């Protein structure tokens, strides 16, 4: 068994598991707050995926002071993750304030009740 290769795919396995958990929550849970939690899990999975892409074996973190200029992990993926975390915060804040307003107007945050926009 090539443990070396399996070890290398470990981060991507966690990404798939986390994404599936998030997708499951979003698809099958009826409570809006749980859906937003599912979205947060999916965001973490996406961020983990981006960071694990940038990893090069045996290289230093991309902080300039601690490494010679050649052996560095790819910093662009870290920049992408930072932006995606900021966007994740903004979207979750907006979604939560929508849920607060829906609780005020509909009196319930169950997706079965929150569907007056049908006809």
């Amino acid at each position, binding site marked *: 068994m090539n443990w070396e290769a399996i070890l290398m795919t470990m981060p991507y396995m966690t990404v798939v598991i986390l994404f599936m958990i998030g997708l499951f929550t979003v*698809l099958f849970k009826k409570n809006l707050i749980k859906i937003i939690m599912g979205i947060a899990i999916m965001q973490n999975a996406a961020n983990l995926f981006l960071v694990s892409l940038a990893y090069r074996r045996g290289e230093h973190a991309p902080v300039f002071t601690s490494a010679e200029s050649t052996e560095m992990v790819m910093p662009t993926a870290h920049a992408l993750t930072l932006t995606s975390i900021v966007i994740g915060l903004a979207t979750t804040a907006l979604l939560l304030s929508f849920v607060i307003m829906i609780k005020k107007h509909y009196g319930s945050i169950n*997706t*079965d009740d929150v*569907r007056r926009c049908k006809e």
Partner: protein
Amino acid sequence: MSALAYQLVPVSGWNPLVLILLALIVGVLVYMIYRLGNHSYKETKYKREPFLSGNSPADDPDSLHIGGSNLYWGFTRALKRYFEPLVRGHTGLLNDYLYWFVITVVVIMVVLYFV
């Protein structure tokens, strides 16, 4: 200048200006024929109603406004087996919207993989 002129009034293909010109000409012709008619006919309040069928319409014609939504009731009634599931399809449930999203991703992925 000629290029722009050609673009503005292209000879081949669809050209709205020719159509509008035609419309104007026909309009003028119709107006001329309209002028020929005699104008003694007055728009009187109690003109004879053209009798079509059934009982005479209610005395107050203004109340006869058919509501908008059931203008095509015949069409929708005939295709009931198509319209029923379609209208019910829009459930308004957030989870259903996401089912459709995931289903489309899977379907297109399979199609793209095999073809």
